[in-house]
């Protein structure tokens, strides 16, 4: 048995599909005459796709680091357009009857070898560029095969999953994920949770120990992965699964009820989503709208930046599905680990070009998104939320752009909500410190705990080596959250939370007692959170928060909160 970090709940028994993500491996594979046309087709697709990818990278690089560095990609694109080169590759496929990737590998490696042998350092560097472009072509050829070769209803076992991989596999009925790396708040974990796919991350060597086709058990409640389970284990797993299902049914009964404490305090519960498909799921969980719609999903799915029309139709569909409740839309938050395409090779992407910084540097992308959001607001309540705000200047600049977008729509007599609300995510410690000033400038504040905690504690939440230092209940985190809520309320503005912490049952009493107005979380946890709120009293929660604010260590806080939660809600299934 292996033990990792439980990232998304559920127990699943199934066959493993081991997904290798390193440099593409190429086998010397022969093909038959009949397969030639197909192989040449695959080659062509891959060239086109590789070119599109590189054009995007090139464009971004030119804008961010100048044309000097962009030249690398220019040269790679030229290689993709080299007719002579691809004629000889096609000839190899036809004459030698070899697979497309093998022909690419053989032909391009020839040049690469010649460059490597050069005494000139410049030339040896070029060999790396050639290797890059070769790997890209091969990866793109294999990508197609990967999907077609993937057996539906498998458990994906992988070193690491990028958000793009996670989405890609989820379209092929994946049962569960088990990965070597990653922490509970890595984006693959977040995504698998929002897609309702059980997953365990941080297993360190699951890819080494599991062979393709092995039957394994992935327990997303405890973080256990069982290899070669015996009959008895399988039965026990099924029983535990049933227990959980039973509990879930009991939660369904309170679905339509308000999230109200025993002494009458009402809070808002809403959901975090990434795809329009999820908006339907949200209602069945009894959520009051969407507290965080991550627009990156749409950008991950499209090759280039989606057009205003594409964005508008996606946003409108979410707004319509969520009515009569509101949808809080976060403007594009590319960067950090959520990379659509980050060509600049930043040494420290989390402290680099991401969130509002990207948008303000690329006003045309920002304006397109703002117009699309405004247009969707004609069909239901939309709030706009800005990621990675560090000061007032960014908010004021955004408001100018928003006014410009509104003016453009007015001129075309396109309807939108004139009083659309705009809010700031508080996730950078600087913003937390000046939360009062920010609250004066916007309509609402939303605490993004995942980033706030990692910036406050200087811990990379995706880095398993230091993942244990990522502490939700660190006294500094609690005091900061307290400060943000207090400052927001002083300005008369509502304060919500859309990080993982908002859906943590253990944190609930504390956050409720600190006066948080809205909790936005992953849909699967919402019924449980509602059950807790309906079982406790606000005045007790306030007292608990007061006590917690005086505690000195995370362990003291955690133990205290757990004991209280168990006492107040005894029938909770806490793993």
């Amino acid at each position: 048995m292996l033990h990792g970090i439980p990232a998304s709940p559920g127990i699943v028994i199934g066959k493993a599909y081991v997904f290798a993500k390193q440099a593409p491996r190429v086998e010397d594979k022969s093909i038959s005459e009949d397969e030639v046309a197909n192989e040449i087709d695959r080659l062509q697709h891959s060239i086109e796709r590789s070119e599109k990818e590189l054009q995007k990278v090139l464009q971004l690089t030119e804008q961010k680091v100048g044309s000097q560095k962009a030249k690398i990609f220019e040269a790679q694109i030229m290689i993709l357009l080299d007719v002579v080169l691809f004629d000889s590759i096609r000839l190899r496929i036809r004459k030698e009857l070899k697979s497309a990737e093998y022909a690419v590998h053989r032909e391009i490696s020839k040049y690469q070898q010649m460059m490597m042998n050069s005494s000139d350092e410049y030339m040896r560097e070029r060999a790396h560029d050639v290797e890059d472009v070769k790997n890209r072509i091969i990866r793109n050829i294999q990508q197609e095969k990967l999907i077609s070769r993937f057996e539906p209803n498998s458990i994906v076992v992988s070193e690491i999953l990028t958000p793009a991989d996670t989405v890609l596999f989820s379209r092929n009925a994946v049962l569960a994920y088990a990965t070597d790396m990653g922490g509970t708040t890595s984006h693959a974990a977040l995504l698998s949770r929002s897609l309702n796919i059980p997953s365990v991350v941080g297993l360190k060597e699951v890819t080494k120990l599991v062979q393709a086709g092995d039957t394994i058990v992935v327990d997303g409640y405890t973080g256990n992965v069982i290899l070669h389970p015996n009959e008895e284990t399988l039965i026990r797993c099924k029983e535990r699964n049933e227990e959980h299902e039973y509990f879930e049914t009991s939660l369904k009964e309170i679905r339509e009820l308000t999230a109200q404490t025993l002494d009458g305090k009402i809070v808002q519960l809403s959901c975090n989503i990434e795809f329009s498909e999820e908006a339907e799921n949200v209602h069945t969980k009894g959520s009051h709208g969407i507290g965080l719609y991550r627009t990156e999903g749409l950008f991950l799915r499209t090759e280039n930046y989606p057009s205003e029309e594409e964005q508008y139709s996606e946003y409108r569909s979410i707004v319509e599905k969520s009515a009569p409740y509101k949808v809080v839309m976060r403007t594009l938050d590319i960067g950090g680990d959520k990379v659509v395409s980050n060509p600049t090779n930043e040494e420290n992407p989390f402290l680099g070009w991401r969130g509002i910084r990207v948008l303000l540097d690329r006003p045309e992308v920002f304006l397109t998104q703002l117009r699309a959001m405004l247009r969707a607001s004609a069909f239901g309540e939309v709030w706009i939320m800005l990621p990675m705000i560090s000061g007032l200047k960014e908010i004021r600049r955004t408001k100018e752009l928003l006014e410009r977008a509104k003016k453009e729509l007015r001129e075309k007599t396109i309807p939108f909500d004139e009083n659309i609300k705009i809010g700031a995510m508080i996730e950078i410690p600087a913003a937390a410190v000046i939360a009062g000033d920010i609250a004066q400038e916007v309509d609402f504040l939303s605490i993004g705990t995942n980033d706030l905690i990692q910036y406050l504690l200087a811990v990379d939440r995706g880095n398993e080596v230091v993942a244990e230092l990522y502490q939700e209940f660190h006294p500094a985190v609690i005091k900061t959250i307290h400060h943000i809520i207090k400052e927001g309320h002083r300005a008369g503005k509502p304060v919500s939370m859309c990080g993982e912490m908002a859906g943590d049952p253990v944190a609930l009493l504390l956050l409720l007692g600190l006066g948080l107005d809205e909790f936005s979380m992953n849909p699967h946890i919402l019924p449980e959170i509602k059950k807790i709120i309906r079982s406790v009293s606000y005045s007790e929660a306030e007292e608990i928060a007061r006590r917690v604010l005086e505690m000195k260590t995370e362990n003291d806080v955690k133990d205290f909160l757990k004991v209280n939660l168990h006492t107040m809600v005894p029938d909770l299934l806490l793993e």
Partner: protein
Amino acid sequence: MIEKEVTIRNRAGLHTRPAAALVKIAAQFKSEFFIYKDGFEINGKSIIGVMTLAAEQGSSLQLKFEGDDEEQAMQTVVGLFERGFDEM
């Protein structure tokens, strides 16, 4: 078939930009175009081939043209080399 020897005159040699310019110009002609250097033969219409040559300033290359418009191709290409790829 015509053969002609040229010398790289621009300082940076046949790096990416000149290589691209050379391939682009060669592609305008029907004639086949090969470059020889140190025992290597490279198709002059292939960017990856020309990049592989690593021809630095001062080195000399043997050019070979073969086809209907070989004379014109030769003059245009040699002109490009003589102007140092307009980089001097």
